[in-house]
Structure formats: structure tokens, C-alpha cells
């Protein structure tokens, strides 16, 4: 499930309704972490990605797949959803660790007040 190509991977905070969402490029180590978690995290049973409506709705990543194509990854509130042409897989993100780790990579890439807001919403580890 490796991205393989070394292509830049963009992450988007699904935050706004009117304005475009903030986006930034994930550093390679964060991409590696994401791939590792997707490969090893336990499946989430009896769970479903929530849609809170207005306000912070998690992170989305378009992750290239080594075999071709792109997996759409959504990370929010303790769950990670990976969607490809062959279907969707839902795994756990305990303590929102992956979500926090990816958010941390934004500290110098998005306006500070937005970074601070997102961290406040997600809460401390």
C-alpha cells in the first residue's frame, strides 16, 4: 500500500463552508506514518465516519497508490477511512494520534490562528 513514487502528497483540512480549505504538503515522514497506520491499524467495527456539518470535519488526503490510482483518505474523530475504486475500509485512529500528527505538520504552513483553532477543536492528546 505504499505511495511508492515519492510524489508530493497534499492534505486538506475540511473546515470551511464558503472559503477554500487550507491545504499543505505532507512531509515524507508523515506520509510514511499515514501509510504505516493504514497498514496496521485495527479495523473499526460497528463504526461510521461522522459528518458534523458546519465546522471542523477532519483531514482529507489524496494518497497515490503504487499500483496506480489514488486512495482518498479521511481522518476524523478516531477513525480513518480509505476509499479506492475497490471500496472503502475503516480503521481506528486511537487517541486521534494520526490526526494530531498530521495536524502538527501544518504549524508553519497555515495561518497560526487557524492552526491554533484546529488544535483546540481536536483537543490535547
Amino acid at each position: 500500500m505504499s505511495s511508492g513514487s515519492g510524489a508530493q502528497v497534499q492534505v486538506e483540512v475540511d473546515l470551511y463552508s464558503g472559503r477554500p480549505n487550507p491545504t499543505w504538503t505532507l512531509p515524507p515522514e508523515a506520509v510514511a506514518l499515514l501509510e504505516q497506520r493504514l497498514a496496521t491499524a485495527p479495523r473499526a467495527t460497528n463504526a461510521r465516519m461522522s459528518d458534523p456539518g458546519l465546522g471542523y470535519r477532519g483531514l482529507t488526503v489524496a494518497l497515490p497508490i503504487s499500483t496506480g490510482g489514488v486512495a482518498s483518505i479521511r481522518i476524523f474523530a478516531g477513525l480513518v477511512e480509505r476509499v479506492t475504486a475497490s471500496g472503502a475500509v475503516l480503521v481506528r485512529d486511537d487517541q486521534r494520534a494520526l490526526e494530531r500528527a498530521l495536524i502538527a505538520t501544518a504549524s508553519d504552513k497555515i495561518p497560526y490562528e487557524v492552526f491554533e483553532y484546529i488544535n483546540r477543536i481536536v483537543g490535547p492528546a
Partner: protein
Amino acid sequence: MLKITADLFSGLPNPEWLVEGAEAASVLHDLATNRHAVASADSGFTGLGFRGLVVETLDEHSSDEFSLPTKFRLANGGSLNESKSHEVAERLISRMTASTAANHPSILNRDYATDPVKNYLLQALKEPRKKSVVSTVEPEGETQETADAAHLKPGIKLPPIFVCAYETTPFNPAFWNDPAHISKNNCYNYASNRRTDTFAQPGRATGHMYSVINCAEVTNGAVSDGASLTCAPASQAPRWYMALVIAPGPGFVDFHWYRKAKEGFWGHKPGGTAARNTDNSGHIVNDPRTADRGPYTIFCRFMYAQNKMVVK
């Protein structure tokens, strides 16, 4: 010199007029000797409908001379002597359409300082304030009438200027949630009913995109695109009825829009996510003013998307 504002509308600009000279002095003297008729500016009835008169002194000595606040309310249910408060309010309302009523730079909104509105206010003063009941007038067919008429007292004949016609369509989320389009269209696309796949921004299509996000700037952008703040003529049908709200921050600053559906509720589309008719608490949005809007805590206003409106 007194500036009087009738706190009446939620979407339209409130009527304003001037009372000066001997009449203003007489009113102030009357209030100074009947101090309990004066209510503080932030008091009283705050719901839908007539919320009393806001009285402001425009010269530097009147409030000191009569020991009155520079800004206060009358006939809003917030005073200790509402009878007297109503009596003085009636005097001030009767001056709404006087020839000198607009002679001051602070008088900005004269559109609705008219005889029909004056007569409506005078009649409203005589009626006891009831719990507001939304009574949207819905004639047969697609055309409906605006919420600014809906919250005014049932049973009182409304002047034509309170009634704006607009069009609605059945709630159709599938059109917006098509995977080929869902992420490319936002709340503004949805509210204006224009699926451009450009994640449209108010004002961008017409070269007047907002520079900061607040009610005034985003409203101005939409107006530049062709939205109307007052009744839109039938020639501009279909006229979609929209509502604008703002998240003021700190940290989260954004705008959001709603559009009224034929079924009577409001639909909306939070960014690139699914169009829906429920709020953040999962309740049907019957009124954007009272829906759970999450961080979008400021309700700006209603307005109309006209046929000529373009968005990008």
C-alpha cells in the same frame, strides 16, 4: 435633534427618520418628566416583529439638558411605564414622513419610512404583543412570500412593501451530491442555485470579491454578483430566497449560506460536503436564524438571488 429608528425588520433595512426643533424638545421634556417611560437600548422584546423605537440624540446637549441617555428605546416592553412609552412613540411615529424627516447625514434608510409603514406601526402600537407566529403566506404554485412578512402580526393587513415574492424548488440534494460535482461546489453555489464547479466566492464573478469576511463585505460581494437585498421584481424570476451567516472567529472566520426549499425548510451545503436540510444538531432547518449553525454565530440577513445573478 433626534434620530428615530423603528426596530422592525430582520432582513430589510429598518426605517429611520429625524425629529427636530420644538417637537424634539417637547418629546424630551415629556420623557424627562416621565422617566419610567424610557427603556435602555438593550432591553425589552428581542423577537421577530416590531421591537420598539430606538431614539438617539444627535446633538451634544439634549441628553445632558434632559438627563436622558443618548440612546434609548420606547414601546418595546422594556420600560416601567409602557403606556407613556407608547404615547411618546406614537408622537414620534407620526413624524416619520414629515418633510424634514430625512435632513441629516445619519439618516441612511429612507426606503421604508413611508405612509404605509407609518400606519402599520401606529396600528402595531395599539395591539398587545403576542407570541410571534410564523405565518408564511404560500399561494398556490411555486411563488412564496418573504419571512419579513411572515413574522409580522397575523390579522393586521400588511402594506405591499412588506411582501416580497420569490420562487422555490423541491429540495434536491442528489443534484449537488453527485460525486462529479460535490467537492467543487460550496454553500454559495447551493444558495444561489448555480452549480459552476468553481467553489464560488461572493463577488468574484463581477470583480468585487470580499476582502474581509464580515456581513457587509460578503453581502456586498453577493449584491455585486446580482443578489437583491429588497424585493426582486417578477422579471428577475426565478428569485431564490437565501440567508447569509458568518463565523466571526477568532481562529475560524468564514461565511455560509442557506436557500429556502419548496417544502418550507432550508437547504444548505457546508463546503465540499453533502447538501442537506439539517443543522449541526440534526434538526431540520426551519429557520436559519434559530438553527444550530456551529461556529457561524452571526446571522447577517436574508436576500434574493435574481435571475441575472452570476457566480464564479
